[in-house]
């Protein structure tokens, strides 16, 4: 059974992102579990890639740290398997298409099922290019998460209509990273989405404060936080576990 829907059941979802292998893969399971303890409803696990074109400097640096420690896709699968022994939290991979392509779509999806992942977010695979992966993902009961951007406009309905799992609503132009001033009219983007689908919509890119989470909880089904989490790991390194719990608990209003 795919676990993604449970993240949105009768609640607003808090989605936390972490780059696997940063600063060392042996720390990643604990970091994930601390985020879950802090109230994260879904975890996005970044499989590091050499050239993450949708990421700002904070997550770029995390990719460099993970790769320089030799983190591989196979090791990330094993790591998720370890998390699965202790938690049923929905997990989706966030990575770039070449990581899947080179691994082999079929084999990649097999390993997702085996380790207990529920789907993937691939920022360089737009709607038009999904066909080469979508049937394979579906056959494995994995969700290929669709992204909608501030520039999507008339594409919103087309994308939303076929979206599954949840919809990743990109709050801002540009790359990932903390922002204090998000100007996009996310409310009307969500309205467009609602007109054609019940698939939950979560807002990401730039979110780093509890106030922002509260704002988006009013109009959307969840919030996605990445760079702010990764920055804590950059600052505290191997000892970031407790700090991650504190931050996520604060963001989810658990404290």
């Amino acid at each position: 059974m795919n676990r993604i829907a449970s993240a949105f059941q009768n609640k607003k979802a808090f989605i936390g992102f972490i780059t696997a292998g940063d600063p060392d893969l042996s720390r990643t399971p604990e970091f994930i579990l601390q985020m879950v303890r802090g109230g994260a409803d879904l975890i996005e696990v970044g499989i590091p890639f050499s050239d993450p074109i949708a990421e700002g400097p904070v997550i770029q640096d995390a990719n460099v740290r993970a790769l320089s420690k030799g983190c591989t896709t196979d090791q990330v699968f094993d790591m998720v398997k370890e998390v699965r022994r202790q938690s049923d939290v929905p997990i989706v991979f966030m990575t770039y298409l070449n990581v899947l392509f080179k691994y082999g779509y079929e084999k990649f999806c097999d390993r997702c099922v085996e380790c207990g992942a529920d789907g993937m977010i691939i920022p360089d695979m737009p709607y038009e290019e999904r066909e080469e992966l979508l049937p394979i993902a579906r056959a494995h009961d994995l969700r290929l998460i669709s992204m909608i951007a501030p520039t999507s406009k008339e594409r919103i309905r087309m994308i939303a209509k076929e979206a599954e799992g949840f919809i990743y609503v990109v709050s801002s132009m540009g790359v990932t990273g903390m922002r204090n001033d998000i100007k996009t009219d996310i409310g009307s983007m969500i309205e467009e989405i609602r007109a054609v689908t019940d698939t939950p919509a979560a807002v990401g890119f730039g979110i780093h404060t509890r106030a922002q989470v509260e704002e988006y909880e009013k109009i959307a089904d969840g919030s996605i936080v990445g760079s702010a989490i990764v920055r804590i790991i950059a600052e505290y390194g191997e000892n970031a576990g407790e700090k991650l719990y504190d931050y996520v608990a604060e963001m989810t209003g658990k404290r």
Partner: protein
Amino acid sequence: MSKGRFGIHGGQYIPETLMNEIIKLEEAYDHYKNDPEFVAELQRLMETYAGRPSLLYYAENMTRDLGGAKIYFKREDLNHTGSHKINNCLGQALLAKKMGKTRLIAETGAGQHGVATATVAALLGMECEIFMGKLDTERQALNVYRMELLGAKVHPVESGTATLKDAVNECMREWTNRVADTHYVLGSVMGPHPFPTIVRDFQSVISREARAQILELEGKLPDVVMACVGGGSNAMGMFYNFVEDKEVQLIGCEAAGRGVDTDRTAATIATGSEGVFHGMKSYFCQNEYGQIAPVYSISAGLDYPGIGPEHAYLHDIGRAQYVPVTDDEAVDAFEYIARQEGIVAAIESSHAVAHLMKIAPKMRKDQIIICCLSGRGDKDVAAIARYRGKELYE
């Protein structure tokens, strides 16, 4: 299968944020490429500003010295700004202007494309920002100042390997950040559709001229047409109008760096495998997990881990042949053509000259080679001197 395919290669593997812009670009290009006014305006700039048509030069000394095929050079080095890059920049900037854009951004490796973009931006009164790997800003310092002189802002890119691929990454990031008034002047036949087609079309003037020129001069088609290949824009331009002439052999010369059996190479066809990167499916230098490899070449312009999708297709169907050329061979050729013909060719183009030196002696005297001299080598003089152990700095 999505749009913009060359066999299995090509496509539009880009963030959703850019999709509408890419679709708009395709629509604008489809409209303006057949618009008589646009075509005439571009033609006028090509002739009066870029200096087209470029010469097809018979290299008599090299022909005699190498003792085989008759050698012709297509002199793109004589274009304004010193390389073939101006062909594409004029076309794209004019298109961008028609689309209402006021700002151009571009990546650059050796600086040739950056200089050409900055030049055209100055000419057309547009804002210009260039992204260049930090390492490249150091080895091509003169071109950095040249771009600044032309009114462009140059951003040294420190991420990753601090070379051309990272400059492309940063340029794509900047484009997703500010797309409404900005056009990304992609410099090679790569990236998401429609760029590989647009750039190839604007560069195809090279082979359109060369084909007519050789028929005029020799009354027959050449036996070999060759060019250096990084992303592959001068090669695609040089090949395009000969692709249907099945008897013409097409050869692309890749940068092998220290050699294809080392990890200090940028020869994508020789050492790469199929992948998806920078918006396209094609061949890339990468490891078993799809991590893009840090590539190396003495030539900043060929120091790229991928190749344009149409080249990947020409390789797949066997229509074009791709051969690796090492740093050493390219530097030898750089010096050889200077002494033989009095032409200081770019170190990029010298990769093609190096392979020409291998094949010309084995060919008959009634056979013809056309080699594209994609750029001039003034920018490389100091680096070549250092390669030869002379401490010369610009």
